[in-house]
């Protein structure tokens, strides 16, 4: 009895998590434009998607911004962690607090303040401003996931490397960096998803004619969202799913695979 209840419970949760995505995928094959009627199976929307330059450009923008902003934020965030690690306790906790605030801050506040900042500096709105904003809100996430690894770091190994004649830079890349890598990777992934997801900050800091997927979809509200978007969303979902399956199935379960990385990180976070 108890196990049946457990199973039903889990099934319900999975249903609520995945039913929306399932419906979206079914609708992406619907010949009729409306969700209310099944007009027969078609691949038309997938074809139309790859001919729709605007959507493809928005997709490219989204991926480009997500990749660049998370890469740059990862570098800046990691460097910041190294610096913060060398500081006195007091200064460190003050700085940690400061970097945490933007994460708790509502997106709309961040978005509007960034917009005002750019206006007052006279910066032209465009891809550049979106990228700057995304880097800005990504840095705290990187710091958040690298910092715990930093704390566990054994300083003696680094000092030993120096004693044995290594230059500080060399010692860092050979000794410290490999220890930090899981934290850096999960920070990067987190920053990437945050950037991919963002609508509000992008909305306020984007220039004319530059759209990411989220802002593009939002403008379609008046006339109803086009089924091409269903097709695109299904493709993205399937890609992510396949990637996850592949990563988890990889034969030699390396330490740096996403699964272990996440669990390790979770258990170490403060």
């Amino acid at each position, binding site marked *: 009895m108890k196990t049946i209840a457990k199973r039903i419970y889990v099934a319900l949760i999975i249903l609520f998590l995945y039913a929306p995505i399932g419906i979206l995928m079914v609708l992406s094959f619907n010949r*009729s*434009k*409306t*969700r*209310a*009627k099944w007009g027969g199976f078609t691949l038309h929307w997938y074809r139309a998607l790859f001919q729709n330059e*605007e959507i493809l450009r928005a997709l490219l923008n989204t991926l*480009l911004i997500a990749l*660049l902003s998370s890469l740059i934020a990862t570098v800046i965030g990691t460097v910041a962690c190294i610096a913060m690690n060398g500081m006195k306790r007091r200064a460190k906790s003050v700085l940690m607090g400061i970097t945490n605030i933007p994460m708790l801050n509502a997106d709309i506040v961040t978005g509007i303040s960034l*917009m005002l900042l*750019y*206006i007052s*500096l*006279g*910066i*032209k*709105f*465009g*891809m*550049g*401003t979106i*990228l*700057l904003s995304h880097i800005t809100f990504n840095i705290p996430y990187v710091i958040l996931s690298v910092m715990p690894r930093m704390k566990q770091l054994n300083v003696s190994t680094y000092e030993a490397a120096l004693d044995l004649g290594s230059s500080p830079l060399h010692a860092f890349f050979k000794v410290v960096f490999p220890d930090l890598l899981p934290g850096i990777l999960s920070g990067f992934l987190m920053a990437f998803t945050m950037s991919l997801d963002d609508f509000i900050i992008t909305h306020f800091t984007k*220039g*004319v*004619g*530059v*759209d990411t997927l989220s802002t593009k979809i*939002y*403008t*379609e*509200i*008046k*006339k*109803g969202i*086009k089924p091409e978007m269903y097709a695109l969303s299904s493709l993205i979902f399937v890609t992510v799913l396949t990637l996850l399956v592949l990563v988890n199935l990889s034969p030699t379960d390396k330490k740096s695979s996403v699964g272990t990385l996440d669990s390790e990180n979770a258990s170490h976070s403060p």
Partner: protein
Amino acid sequence: MKKHRMYYIRQSAAALTILLSAALCGCSSDKGVNGQVIVYNWGEYIDPETLLMFEEEYGIKVIYDEFETNESMYPKVESGAVAYDIACPSDYMISRMIQNGMLSEINYGNIPNAKKNIGAQYFEQSRGFDPENKYAIPYCWGTVGILYNRTMVEEPITCWEQLWDEKYADNILMQDSVRDAFMVAEKLNGHSMNTLDPAELEAAKNLLIEQKPLVQAYVVDQVRDKMIGGEAAIGVIYSGEAIYTQKENPDLVYVIPEEGTNVWIDSWVILKNAPNKENAEKFINFMCREDIALMNFEYITYSTPNVAARELIEEEEIKNSEIAFPDLSQYGNLETYVYLGEDGDYLYNELWKEVKAY
């Protein structure tokens, strides 16, 4: 000293942005031979092909941006983050922009197609929000009416009053927006839909509260899908959606209620601080050309005020459609929204909250 530092920060920030944007998107910064024009329009509200044609014919690069509601367009234009040349707001938002001095007067001499192709009755209707036709050139328009499923009602629906008929309890869809909801009640009471009279507003509010138990849902764009799927018998809908829903479900009928209704008009306006005013005039003139207006009509499917374009429509059924092109003179009591001022907006919102919370 401080000034110097500020200058330095500004310089380096600007340099960084230029560097980044140049690296990322060398394409967007190049201008056409004859400069550029920056257009701010509703999403999915133009045939993209027409933009390419304009660029080719005039050598002017179109930088095209989209918004989703009048309310989200306004602050972006006002903030000046981007100096747009042209926008395409709705009636009441245009009156607000006129009141706040954000628009530039139209020089009809440079836009000959406007007076030539656009029906005089639409300019007349625009006087509601632009009294001297100085600022706005109609682009799309439509009515708000009732869409009903003839298999689900006992007699034809002809007036707003039937939305209060208990027969149709739980089968009615209302618009979930203040102005559209109050418009229905105000028209039924025989008042203006732009009224600010407390007694009239109170009456409208009470009417809406009375109707509430009969309403299946207050929705915005789900009316379309719900009506096609036969989930409700009667819905308040914009005429632009009606033709599409009828194609999907032939049982649906659209009517303009006897008590009168809202005629909405989305129009091109040139902004006061437009950097490329001449190009903006050329762009609007191009959009008013009959063949271009026809392309846009076929893409958007909302009624076009362009009489010459309507003549070119090949499908007789659409050309003479009572839904797409109702003869406005046949209906009494048609109105267009005007901006009610901040206090007016506040008043309406408070009353609407009372209705929703009741």
